[in-house]
């Protein structure tokens, strides 16, 4: 039975219970990931990180949460009060909602019912996730705008521009997955990967998704919205206490959500690693949950690794990369993938497939050669301009003293 069929038989109380469990798991995972991130980044910088509160500092994030809750809650005079309060709520709820369609396990026994750990299975599940992520942008824009202050406004604009640009690349990278799996339902995409993960089959798509998910979540090296040196705190500069905590929470839930989506779409979701398929039956199927979280946490580690390694991009470089590299590249990739797909569905001869691949390679070589030539040409031209006299007046170089000394 597919997950969709399993879930459709759930009574109401099981759905409610699943919702609570998924919510609790997200919050717990967030708390642990804040701690984990600080510890890992610290190790990358040869520090030890938080190690005071609880064993290994495990309770640090919890204590920070309590501290935030006890802080004074300020609303600036110039703020639009209603929207100011609404913004963090929008951004938190939307990122939790994305989890509704993520399949966490396969078939399991849940209090006597055979079901799957997935709240709902939409036939357009992935589109739903993208839509919800877009609504999340409102949280950022409205927070920046309603603060009634300059830095949050600029930060909010930057964040939203960033999220929107990278959502395009993200959406395009998913198209190849849809073409191959023939479905937009998360559970069916997982099922379609039972032989090969899409991270292998559609490697370029996976890379594009992995890059754009970092841009999408406003994380280093794409954390321009929080460029402290330029924008103070970005869109949440004016926020304090619990409202700030909500933004903080939503940032981390977002990271976990995009990692979970990446796991589902490219790494075979809750399925075991290749060759370890027998573990999927352990604990009555519940062991798949372990596989799921192992994959999600691997993504999380990459997020932290990026943060520990790369410096922040400049805004124009970032936009250039998104619009001029990622998007055209994914468009071309989609064309190739869809052509190959059509060829294989029509059961065309191998000769045709090889001819197609060959012509793509030829076009690639031609285009890169042209680009290289253009580069060399501009380099030569710029060299010429470098050595020619500038067209603005320059003062004479006083070298009389040097001549005297040289005698």
């Amino acid at each position, binding site marked *: 039975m597919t997950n969709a069929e399993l879930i459709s038989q759930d009574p109401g109380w099981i759905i409610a219970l699943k919702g609570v469990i998924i919510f609790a798991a997200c919050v717990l995972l967030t708390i642990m990931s804040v701690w984990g991130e600080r510890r890992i980044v610290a190790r990358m910088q040869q*520090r030890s990180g938080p190690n005071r509160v609880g064993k290994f500092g495990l309770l640090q994030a919890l204590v920070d949460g309590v501290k935030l809750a006890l802080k004074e809650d300020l609303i600036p005079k110039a703020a639009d009060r209603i929207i100011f309060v609404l913004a963090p709520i929008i951004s938190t709820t939307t990122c939790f909602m994305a989890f509704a369609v993520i399949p966490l396990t396969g078939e399991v026994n849940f209090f006597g019912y055979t079901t799957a750990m997935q709240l709902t299975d939409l036939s357009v599940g992935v589109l739903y996730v993208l839509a919800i992520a877009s609504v999340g942008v409102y949280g950022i824009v409205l927070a920046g705008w309603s603060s009634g202050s300059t830095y949050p406004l600029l930060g909010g604009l930057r964040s939203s521009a960033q999220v929107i640009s990278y959502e395009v690349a993200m959406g395009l990278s998913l198209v190849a997955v849809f073409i191959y799996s023939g479905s937009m339902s998360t559970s069916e995409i997982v099922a379609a990967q039972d032989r090969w993960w899409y991270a292998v089959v559609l490697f370029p798509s996976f890379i594009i998704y992995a890059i754009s998910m970092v841009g999408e979540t406003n994380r280093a090296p794409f954390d321009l919205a929080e460029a402290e040196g330029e924008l103070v705190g970005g869109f949440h500069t004016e926020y304090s206490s619990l409202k700030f905590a909500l933004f903080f929470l939503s940032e981390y839930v977002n990271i976990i959500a995009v990692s979970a989506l990446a796991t589902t779409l490219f790494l075979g979701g809750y399925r075991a690693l290749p060759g370890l398929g027998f573990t999927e039956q352990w604990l009555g199927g519940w062991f798949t949950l372990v596989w799921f979280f192992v994959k999600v946490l691997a993504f999380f580690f990459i997020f932290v690794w990026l943060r520990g390694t790369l410096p922040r991009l400049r805004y124009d470089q970032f936009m250039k990369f998104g619009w001029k590299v990622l998007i055209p590249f994914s468009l071309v990739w989609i064309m190739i993938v869809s052509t190959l797909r059509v060829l294989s569905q029509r059961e065309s001869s191998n000769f045709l497939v090889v001819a197609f691949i060959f012509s793509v390679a030829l076009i690639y070589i031609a285009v890169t050669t042209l680009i290289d030539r253009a580069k060399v040409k501009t380099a030569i031209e710029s060299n010429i301009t470098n050595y020619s006299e500038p067209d603005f007046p320059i003062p004479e*170089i006083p070298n009389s*003293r040097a001549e005297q*000394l040289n005698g």
Partner: protein
Amino acid sequence: MADELMPRSDEFGLAKSDAAKAPITNHESASLGKQLLGFWVTFKTMFKKVNTVQYPEVKEPTAERFHGRHQLNRHPDGLEKCIGCELCAWACPADAIYVEGADNKEGEQFSPGERYGKVYQINYLRCIFCGLCIEACPTRALTMTNEYELADDTRAKLIFEKDDLLGPLRAGMVPPPHPMYPNTDDGNYYRGEVTGSHPSQGIAKND
């Protein structure tokens, strides 16, 4: 044409190297492989020994000449070295030192010679630990210790009085006020000819 814009030699006739003449190009980015090497650096560092000192429990000694809290020193017989000249206060760029000098009187001798520092305050909210006061001190009365734990919770507690700053009485020292060593003047003190207290000065601290 370009060569004319660039002097062939500098003022002292030294030829500039070709590298110095070449225009600076920083728009060329490193190859992808080189950029990915950075990831290996951070990954490798994760398994290195952590450099953090668990501070309140573990205290590493400071550098030998670390600028810490000040100390007002004494002569070997227990008299204070400070003569209340205020040179430290004048040298202080942060205006952290306040000194009031007074005359040594018969039966009320705190330092060798005529004058001693009656009031001596250092405001550690202002002090920047530059050490100019130490350089200014003509009698080596003021020096700095290595003590750096100077945090407190009120402003008043961070203004250190003379009692807080005076160095401890060592063995053989007599707590002032007491007369100078018999048959000496302040010159003997400064030349280091007084090496301990005399029974006539008072009861010396033993141990």
